[in-house]
């Protein structure tokens, strides 16, 4: 029953060629944006539940792919610009901006998204990008926390995330107590929830490449987040996507930023290791 999305590989090239922003496909047929190649398929290491790790990009239509491959048309860039502006805006009692401590984001933030979530010794828990940004705001800047799904937070996570675009997702699950969180995430990934009694794995591991009604199921990878979703007409966080999936199976979703969703995020990052960061990706 499964249609492997390989049939889209040709589409990637075509999409890249028609994109107006000068995107071009490299010799290996992988998509690229302004010369930065996106690894959308990587071989899984031994002991990984998948044989091939595939980005959600490969499951989308040529049109949606073309939007992602062209920064001028990618609607996610409105949020990126918001983040870029906030980067150097002084806020809070310490009279500082992100830039005061971190300087040029294209240097200091390179690789940050690719390694999230990351163990934070002081907090005694993993930090997602949102957690780190809020810790900087409250502890370094004397500013208020941003709400998880606020435009300000989406803008900053998109801007910081963009600095890692093309870099392989590589989360460290050995430091601190990351292993425990990874285990918890793994357990949640395989737990059936809701009236429909389904687990993430039912859709994204056993059925990727199959249509579920009108939707082509992907592996549910996290490398494109925050992502501009056409259905939302907006950029959204990974935890918003988790909530959407839980709503669909008539489950009471966990809260954004909850331990459960952070654990799932850590596990998903591990499942998606080696895929390029695509932030800000475009999905339908």
């Amino acid at each position: 029953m499964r249609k492997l999305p390989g049939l889209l590989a040709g589409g990637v090239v075509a999409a890249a060629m028609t994109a107006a922003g000068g995107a071009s496909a490299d010799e290996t047929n992988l998509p690229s944006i302004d010369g930065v190649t996106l690894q959308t398929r990587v071989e899984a290491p031994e002991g990984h539940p998948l044989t091939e790790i595939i980005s959600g990009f490969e499951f989308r239509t040529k049109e949606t792919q073309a939007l992602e491959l062209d920064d001028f048309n990618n609607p996610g860039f409105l949020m990126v610009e918001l983040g870029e502006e906030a980067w150097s805006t002084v806020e809070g009692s310490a009279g500082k901006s992100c830039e005061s401590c971190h300087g040029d984001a294209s240097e200091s933030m390179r690789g940050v998204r690719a390694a999230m979530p990351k163990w934070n010794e002081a907090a005694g828990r993993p930090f997602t990008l949102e957690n780190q940004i809020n810790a900087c705001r409250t502890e370094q800047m004397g500013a208020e926390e941003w709400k998880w799904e606020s435009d300000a937070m989406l803008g900053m996570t998109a801007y910081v995330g963009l600095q890692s675009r093309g870099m392989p997702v590589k989360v460290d699950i050995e430091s601190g107590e990351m292993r425990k969180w990874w285990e918890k995430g793994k357990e949640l990934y395989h737990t059936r929830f809701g009236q429909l009694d389904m687990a993430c794995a039912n859709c994204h591991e056993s059925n990727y490449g199959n249509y579920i009604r009108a939707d082509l199921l992907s592996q549910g990878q996290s490398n494109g987040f925050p992502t501009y979703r056409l259905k939302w007409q907006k950029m959204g966080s990974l935890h918003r996507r988790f909530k959407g999936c839980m709503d669909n199976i008539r489950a009471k979703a966990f809260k954004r930023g909850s331990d459960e969703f952070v654990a799932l995020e850590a596990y998903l990052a591990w499942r998606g290791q080696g895929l390029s960061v695509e932030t800000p990706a475009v999905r339908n």
Partner: protein
Amino acid sequence: MNAILRSSIAGCALLFGAATASAEGLVAYEIVDGTIPVSLTGKPGDPEAGRAALVDRKLGNCLACHTATDLADEQFHGEVGPSLDGVADRWDEASLRMLVVNAKMIYEGTVMPAFHRDAGFNRVMDSFAGKPILTAQQVEDVVAYLKTLKE
């Protein structure tokens, strides 16, 4: 076909649900040999209503996962489950009823939801808590429709 499950079924209590079920709620039924031989409502279902309930995204939404030639006029058939063409040749009425009520009794660990079950779930959304997806009448209607799918 369901030999693997015999043991687990035999181990279960044979009566499910509350004896005093409301119209919306679960009705009691008896599993005999991995099947449900007796209509949940005591009456035969209506195949036309069943076809509608099967297609309706808020009810069966069976096309999320299945396809059927008889439903070719409907958009967006899923690929998660097998085609429903010829199910009436493969299963008798009592087995079809079991499949719709709780397919996990026939296919252990299946992704297919149990459509007439109201407990044993994790974190059900408040608006659906304690309710089955399909009422007893809707189950009978869907079963009546499935019985028309012969090849």
